[in-house]
């Protein structure tokens, strides 16, 4: 979808991000930087035990400290149950509501026990230490596989609490007859999002019973929904304003702090700030879901996949959160990457007494791709086939259908990604190289991935926008966009500027505010550029149509004769009589008493796959187990890059997260105590600059979908193929079949022990 014919002026260009300079200069006020008059500070007390009944809470000493306004626990806060991932009214049916502001039974180390509300942070912190809690310890379980025994009961449900099956063909029959079956068990860790900005929000009550919440969120209407529910307020008494985002990666997609913060503001009748520190973010907010998958692939001797079977366990932690949704999301991806006529996926979700899992960049795709791709790799190995050749033989092709019944894959160009990437990487040459002798081993590996473009085919996916032209020709877009730092605002300006033929800087865009923005589903499901971008394109075309018809009146010509170029407009019949856009807008107001403004709802009409293939070279130190990623080539089918530098930025960042997922990042939980051992950046290692490899990006831009100018998503898929590609390269280097992530030095050396003996 796009403007017909002519070359593009703004789309496809590398404009800088609209607030980048302000961020670099420290001019942006993040939520944590805000101080409102009379604002109180809340601090949280977290459970030290993985599972316990709270017998009593003695807050007398805390309350006696001057400056302490109140202590809040399960005894004096709403008992309303909710699920933090619910984002539209009516979604409750598919998920368990098992969270409360404060619980009377703690279910993981880091569960919220109490809050102190005080005049400043120091007072709150001091009071926190004086709260005495008496617990009755309960049996606990941190192992998702053991959850199936149902020995430890975390919630009044049987584990697994959710099972989802997708299938096509008849895999059982094929497996019975197949000669070659390759099976693997793959494990992926709980991971911290590691956004620079911690979780934070501010709630402000007004004199009319309305609560305004300032929060760096991804889905403001989800915040509104849950806060209104917990506080018992009508929706129009909860105003959510999306503040500048200091990093989310899905970590701020769910409603975590807002209900409590809003309640404290309502109860104290004062503005309240609630901000977590790093340790609190790691142990008590959300993590990437830990997943264990057993996968079987049946192939014929020539490398055609006959059938696949996936048995997957998702560990959602102590509360349900998105445990059901992610199990479904993972399964769907498997029917959109390889042509497999007979395939079954069975995913099951369980609770454990660990930090709650939730949305995290890729929403299960990095996990399921690790499971799938590592098994594709070992299947190729069993066949003695080059893993690239094996993949190309089986990958989906443009316009293939989703055999599980999902939307068409669209112009799926994963084979092109694989072949172009392989060429740039010099895959065949590197693969054929003689192995190094001695301490350091080198290997190359690859992996592919797909991810979606919105909710079309699963949920409602629509967006309403209002676009207006002001009397000086500048424009304002009113929408519920949530800029997460990816370039949403600038890219959307580029699209509107392209349609209107005007400088993108002359277009202003506010972000989400539930009181003034039209409805938007939020920044989730990799939908923003494909769906909201298309909405922006459509509405710009509508405003352009209105503009032309009005200009036609003024020029006394037909609308088709109106030319618009760089904020100047004229009739093709009278090229010398030129007016600015502003002159048209003013004249229209004066003569026709009309504003150039349109409000429109756009409904998504497709959900093609985005695709990627990543190639990696690694060097493994066989004595210390340390791995160095030497080279990465990342090829992605993004349809069209509205702003190629933003797209590359997403890919670089996605690779950085994926290297950590593959090699270092792991929220380690002590099985004896349930305590998170890696609770700071001193012992939870994200990959830093010295360990980042050079990265080469290849973009396949063939459009052919309903996104704006053919744009498809990149933000999430960017991190979905890199980890299995790295693990595959390590296995190639060492001749191992390591499948438990992350590949820590310890796991490498233990994996090499059989060879050493």
């Amino acid at each position, binding site marked *: 979808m796009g403007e017909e014919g002519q070359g593009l002026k703004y789309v496809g260009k590398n404009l800088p991000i609209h607030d980048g300079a302000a961020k670099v200069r420290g001019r942006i006020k993040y939520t944590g930087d805000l101080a409102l008059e009379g604002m109180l500070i809340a601090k949280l007390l977290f459970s030290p035990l993985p599972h316990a009944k709270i017998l009593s809470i003695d807050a007398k000493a805390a309350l006696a400290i001057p400056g302490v306004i109140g202590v809040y626990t399960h005894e004096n806060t709403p008992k309303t149950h909710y699920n933090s991932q619910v984002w539209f009214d009516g979604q409750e049916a598919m998920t368990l509501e098992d969270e409360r502001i404060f619980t009377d039974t703690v279910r993981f180390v880091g569960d919220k026990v109490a809050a102190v509300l005080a005049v400043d942070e120091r007072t709150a912190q001091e009071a926190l230490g004086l709260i005495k809690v008496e617990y009755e310890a309960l049996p606990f379980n941190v192992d998702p596989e053991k959850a199936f025994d149902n020995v430890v009961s975390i919630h009044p449900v049987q584990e697994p609490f959710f099972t989802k099956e997708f299938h096509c063909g008849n895999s059982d029959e094929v497996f019975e007859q197949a000669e070659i079956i390759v099976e693997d068990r793959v494990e992926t860790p709980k991971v911290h999002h590691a956004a620079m900005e911690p979780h934070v929000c501010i709630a402000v009550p007004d004199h009319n019973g309305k609560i305004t919440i300032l929060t760096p969120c991804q889905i403001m209407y989800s915040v509104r929904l849950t806060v209104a529910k917990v506080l018992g307020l009508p929706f129009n008494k909860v105003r959510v304003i999306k503040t500048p985002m200091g990093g989310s990666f899905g970590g701020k997609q769910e409603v975590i702090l807002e209900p409590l913060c809003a309640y404290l503001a309502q109860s104290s009748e004062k503005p309240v700030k609630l901000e977590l520190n790093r340790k609190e973010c790691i142990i008590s907010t959300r993590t990437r879901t830990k997943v264990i998958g057993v996968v079987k692939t049946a192939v014929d001797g020539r490398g055609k996949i006959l059938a696949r079977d996936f048995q997957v366990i998702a560990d959602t932690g102590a509360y349900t959160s998105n445990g059901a949704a992610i199990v479904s999301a993972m399964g769907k991806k498997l029917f959109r990457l390889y042509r497999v006529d007979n395939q079954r996926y069975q995913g099951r979700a369980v609770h454990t007494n660990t930090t709650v899992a939730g949305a995290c960049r890729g929403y299960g795709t990095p996990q399921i791709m690790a499971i799938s791709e590592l098994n594709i790799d070992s299947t190729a190995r069993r066949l003695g086939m080059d893993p690239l050749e094996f993949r190309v033989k089986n990958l989906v092709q443009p316009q293939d259908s989703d055999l599980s019944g999902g939307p068409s894959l669209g112009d799926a160009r994963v084979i092109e990604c694989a072949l172009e990437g392989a060429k740039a990487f010099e895959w065949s040459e590197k693969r054929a190289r003689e192995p190094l002798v001695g301490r350091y081993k080198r290997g190359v590996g690859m992996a592919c991935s797909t991810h979606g473009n919105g909710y079309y085919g699963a949920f409602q996916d629509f967006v309403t926008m209002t676009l207006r032209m002001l009397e000086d020709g500048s424009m304002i877009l009113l929408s519920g966009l949530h800029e997460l730092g990816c370039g949403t605002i600038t890219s959307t300006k580029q699209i509107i500027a392209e349609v209107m033929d005007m400088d993108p800087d002359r277009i202003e865009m506010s972000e989400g505010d539930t009181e003034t923005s039209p409805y938007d589903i939020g920044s989730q499901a990799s939908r923003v550029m494909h769906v909201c971008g298309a909405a922006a394109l459509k509405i710009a075309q509508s405003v352009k149509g209105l503009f032309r018809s009005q200009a036609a009146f003024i020029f006394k010509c037909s609308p088709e004769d109106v030319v618009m170029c760089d904020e100047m407009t004229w009739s093709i019949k009278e090229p010398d009589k030129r007016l600015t856009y502003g002159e048209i807008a003013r004249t229209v107001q004066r003569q026709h008493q009309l504003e150039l403004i349109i409000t429109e709802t756009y409904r998504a009409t497709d959900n093609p796959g985005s695709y990627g293939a990543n190639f990696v070279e690694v060097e493994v130190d066989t004595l210390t187990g340390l791995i160095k990623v030497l080279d990465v080539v990342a090829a992605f089918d993004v349809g069209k890059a509205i702003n190629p530098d933003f797209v590359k930025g997403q890919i670089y960042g996605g690779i950085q997260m994926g290297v950590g997922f593959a090699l270092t990042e792991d929220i380690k939980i002590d099985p004896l105590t349930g305590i998170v051992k890696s609770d700071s950046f001193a012992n939870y290692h994200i990959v830093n600059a010295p*360990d980042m490899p050079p990265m080469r990006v290849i973009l396949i831009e063939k459009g052919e979908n309903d996104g704006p100018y053919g744009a498809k998503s990149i933000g999430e898929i960017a991190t979905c193929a890199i980890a299995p590609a790295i693990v595959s390269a390590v296995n190639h280097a060492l001749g191992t079949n390591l499948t438990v992530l992350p590949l820590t030095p310890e796991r490498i050396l233990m994996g090499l022990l059989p060879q050493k003996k």
Partner: protein
Amino acid sequence: MTEYNGYSFFGPSTLKELLEEVALFDGSIAFLAGGTDLIIELKKGKKKPHLVIDVSQIPELNGVHEENGFLHIGSATTFSQLARHPLIVEKGLCLAQAARKIGSEQIRNRGTLGGNIASASPAGDCLPVLLVLEAMITLQNPDGVRRLPLSQVLQGSGRTCLTPNELITGIDFPVLDGGYVSGFEKLGSRTAVTVAKLNLAAVIKVDQENHSITEARIAVGALGETAFRLPDLEQNLVGEINPFLLHLFEDMLTETVDNAISGRYSHPYKREAIRGLAEDMFVNLFGASSVPGGRTHG
């Protein structure tokens, strides 16, 4: 003196001023050098001193000089200074190498050698180095001066022999002349900004003519509460340099790990990984040709 966050703060510009204040002050004192550990402890409330004294602006505690065959280092000298100081690079190279591998650029710009000793981390990177340099540590309080070997200063994880009103003022060690080579190697979980899982320091005296080692000093860190020397290993290294030396070095280091941390979770990994450090150390001290197959690492 300014009241600051629950404790008083004092920033003297001479050691005399500092000692006078210490003598007069009635209450607990924390000495602030780079603050890379202390500030965090203060913020977390792990330490609650009545008075914080900043030692970083005292010229006597800063810098490196050579005197009578010894290198003298002020306790508040930063890792960044040590890493590139010509005297350290020439006559105590292993210390420069350790200083380069500590923390991040920002940590190295703030963190000090005295602080590394006072923090007494089991993984402190300069500690095995100071052991093999046979460094003496000068401690002062208003009552006087003590000069002790590092092994006596370090008493355990986070524990030293310092009395509550005592601070480290200087570090000294005999210069390594041309007959010596020295080195430091570290293994963390990533290339930079990492706490050592293992660290290893060596000072070796080589008799080039007879192709032999006449003196060896080896120390390891992160294998117990404090870094320690390996006297048996040192003796075994003395003698003619032969092709089996590296293997002996590796085996004895593995044995050291076995003796130090058997039964610990990290034991199986460290007993293998220390062999990598041993190889790195040989390359560092004797060049790439000293390990089998040379060094293929890019």
